[in-house]
């Protein structure tokens, strides 16, 4: 199958296809950081995130032949990482609720944020309940739309939206409690 997506490290990927361990390690060095951050946002725990991320890499190497180059390698790998993270969350019996009620969007507010506040925001996201954190991360940080999130999590499009709105609401409450943002 001819690779379509022009990956920067296509040669490394090709070597991985041949089972070259050095290339596999190289690929890990190239992608571990974004993948770890995806994992961390999904599972919310450093040790687990590392374990899941590494597992995902090993999994990816075993099924690298199924990578057809339609999307970037990073996107393909991220999908595996997300699926492994979801498996991990399922072990914790995290349920992605079907919520269909309409949650009104809040009024737009301008926020200025410092570096310190940014850290607090990150930590607050980290502390969100699993279900909220996953949807919020997938939407805002991994760049999936609600259609894709619904597919990934096996919920409806509407549920994904309402879950996301709830997540934002919860996040606001947390930030307000910490008096991080005065606008609330």
């Amino acid at each position, binding site marked *: 199958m001819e690779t379509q997506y022009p990956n920067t490290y296509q040669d490394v990927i090709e070597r991985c296809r041949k089972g070259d361990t050095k290339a596999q390690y190289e690929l890990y060095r190239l992608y*571990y950081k974004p993948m770890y951050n995806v994992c961390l946002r999904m599972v919310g725990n450093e040790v687990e995130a590392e374990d899941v991320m590494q597992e995902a890499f*090993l999994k990816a190497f075993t099924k690298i032949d199924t990578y057809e180059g339609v999307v970037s390698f990073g996107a393909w790998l991220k999908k595996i990482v997300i699926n492994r993270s979801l498996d991990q969350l399922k072990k914790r019996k995290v349920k992605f609720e079907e919520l269909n009620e309409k949650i009104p969007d809040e009024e737009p507010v*301008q926020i200025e944020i410092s570096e310190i506040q940014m850290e607090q925001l990150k930590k607050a996201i980290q502390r969100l309940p699993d279900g909220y954190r996953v949807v919020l991360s997938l939407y805002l940080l991994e760049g999936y739309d609600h259609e894709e999130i619904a597919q990934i999590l096996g919920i409806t499009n509407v549920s994904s939206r309402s879950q996301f709105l709830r997540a934002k609401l919860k996040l606001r409450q947390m930030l307000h409690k910490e008096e991080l943002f005065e606008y609330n």
Partner: protein
Amino acid sequence: MNDELERLILNNRSSFQENEPPEGHFERFEARLQKASKPIRKINFQPILKIAAVVVFVLLAVNQVRIYFFPEKQATLSLGSISEEYREVEFYYTNAIQIGMNQWDKLKSEGFISEQEQEMMQKEQEDFDLVYQKLLEDLKANPDDERVINAMLEYYQSRMNVITLIINKLQEVKQQKNINHEIKI
């Protein structure tokens, strides 16, 4: 985009990518990679198992053939297998009979036994063997039957007596011949 919180997160996406895994993750991954890529020495057991199955089958078949064509002679079953005492008795008789037969062979080699006598002895031994086989069969069928055991003992005794008698007679003849020879000289 009408939400400032969203915008804030979206605009600072890169700062959400800054976390590093716990220290030593490279080494841990390398180890996992080694473990995963190490060609698990897959000894292909299938051919070995096949060979083993064939070997077992052949052995069983050979054994079946052996059992079919050479049914176990109840070599283990004899008077001696009944008890320790009988074993000793049997040993005594067979030993005595064997000594007698050795003497017979010696006398034969010395030329004291004629061909006719040899044939007679041969016939006698064959008769005894037949009796012995018959007794063995009886013993196999009734291992605890006193009558069979007694018959077995009588058989040994008579066989030994016959041989002893013949040998003694031959020894006498031999001695007589020697004396005659000396007198002649």
